[in-house]
């Protein structure tokens, strides 16, 4: 009768769970240790003003209207005052592909939380600077 086979199934399952207790956990302490992000990670952008021509291709292709270009702002060279609205950005990568002049890139910086929504709109100054080396990670590497 199936009674003993069912009992065997129970013990098989208990064996699997019991073994798992002594295994190394999969998760890691995220803010204290981090893993390496791949080169292609679509994180926040970096804008290279030196090679930008203000052609506005990135503004046109953006499907969620997250990029704004202020042509009136004459403070910047070639008038490319780019505003990135990270409350809207979906990190699709179309703007980087649309850029013909190698002036816009993704960085592997994905943790960009702010206390204020306004701070997530990266102005022309902020979008061309990185506050830390993108490939240098806090804590020890994991995995």
């Amino acid at each position: 009768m199936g009674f003993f086979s069912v009992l065997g199934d129970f013990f098989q399952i208990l064996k699997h769970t019991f073994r798992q207790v002594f295994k190394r956990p999969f998760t890691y302490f995220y803010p204290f240790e981090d893993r390496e992000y791949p080169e292609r990670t679509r994180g926040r952008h970096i804008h290279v003003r030196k090679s930008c021509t203000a052609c506005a291709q990135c503004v046109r292709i953006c499907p969620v209207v997250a990029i704004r270009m202020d042509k009136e702002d004459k403070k910047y060279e070639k008038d490319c005052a780019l505003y990135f609205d990270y409350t809207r950005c979906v990190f699709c990568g179309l703007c980087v592909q649309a850029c013909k002049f190698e002036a816009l890139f993704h960085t592997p910086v994905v943790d960009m939380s702010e206390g204020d929504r306004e701070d997530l709109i990266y102005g022309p100054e902020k979008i061309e600077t990185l506050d830390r080396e993108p490939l240098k990670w806090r804590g020890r590497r994991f995995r």
Partner: protein
Amino acid sequence: MSPDILEDAMELWFGPQHVSAHGWATKLTLVGDYVVECDPNAGYFHRSAEKVLEYKNFRQGALILERMCMLEAFLAEYPYVAAVEKIAEIEVPERAKVMRTIMMEMSRLHSIQFWWGQFNAELGFFTMALWPWVDREYSLDAFEELTGSRHTVSYSTPGGVKYDFTEKSMKQLNRALDRFEDRLPKFRDMQMGSPTFRARTENIGLYDVKQGLKWGLSGPPMKACGIPMDLRKDDPDPNLAYDMVDWEVPITENPEHPGQSDALDRMEQRFAEAETACEIIKQLIPQIPEGPIIDPKARGKANRLPEGEAYARVEGTRGITTLWLKTQDKAQTAYRAKIRGPCIASYYALKDLVPGSKFADFIVIFGSLDPYPGWWDR
């Protein structure tokens, strides 16, 4: 149903704030422990994607589709791209075809891994919910290494794919597959071998082929009835490389009720689907041809499309996923795009499938059909 039974009936809203109802709500009428009426409600997730697609150009459109179902992002975006390619008559390079197929199966594997965990969480077994999700992390790592994003890959574009395989991404891909195949026997013990799982799913949510077809069900819920109904074989897409692989449509036949499927069969079917996906990828990896990944003329062609209609279909994780596209001459945007998600049928099927079953089985029936609200609300 006689009215005096309904006199002591209790109406219970299952959702939209219920913990296991994420974006859907079903009104159940309970008499004692039995559900006598089930009224699935849609619209809690509606983002008017079809209207949005009328305002997005053909390179942006795939991004909207991807967000219909984050779990099978590549499978979801592919019909749009295929429809655009059909109208614009864009040729796809051989290498892109193979890469698309690999990505498609990987996406299917990931979706099944996620569903697996979710279904077990719905069954109150969080151990088995977390274990497939660990494997899913490996799949996500493979996506990330290849495309730079974990969920919304936005990988295909009219004329090919966006990113090429690198050595490292191949390594991640193999790692994900190996990890999954390693753990499969253990998972089989935990699922099919579990007496409590069998007790919960046997003869629950039983329907036959004819009924399922009337509802419009497709994909694993139908293949679990034992019929080889798979668009990958039946309606092969010329821009995909399934003909390069030697594979069989995975079906599940239960001798206890031939031509019918219950929740247990559907779980078994998902096992078979995931194994087939693994097998297809493993066969395709050595066959990737050299060459460009994108047709260089495609970008220009996809900017303005000629007048036309196209109907692109793909066998998604949950069933037939299609997109019907109509364009006007020199159009930058779609004139009309109709998304047909597979889950509109499986969610509708609850209406006839659930009454008569116990209240506790409602979530089992729902989970075993694997509906995703993005597909019916769009």
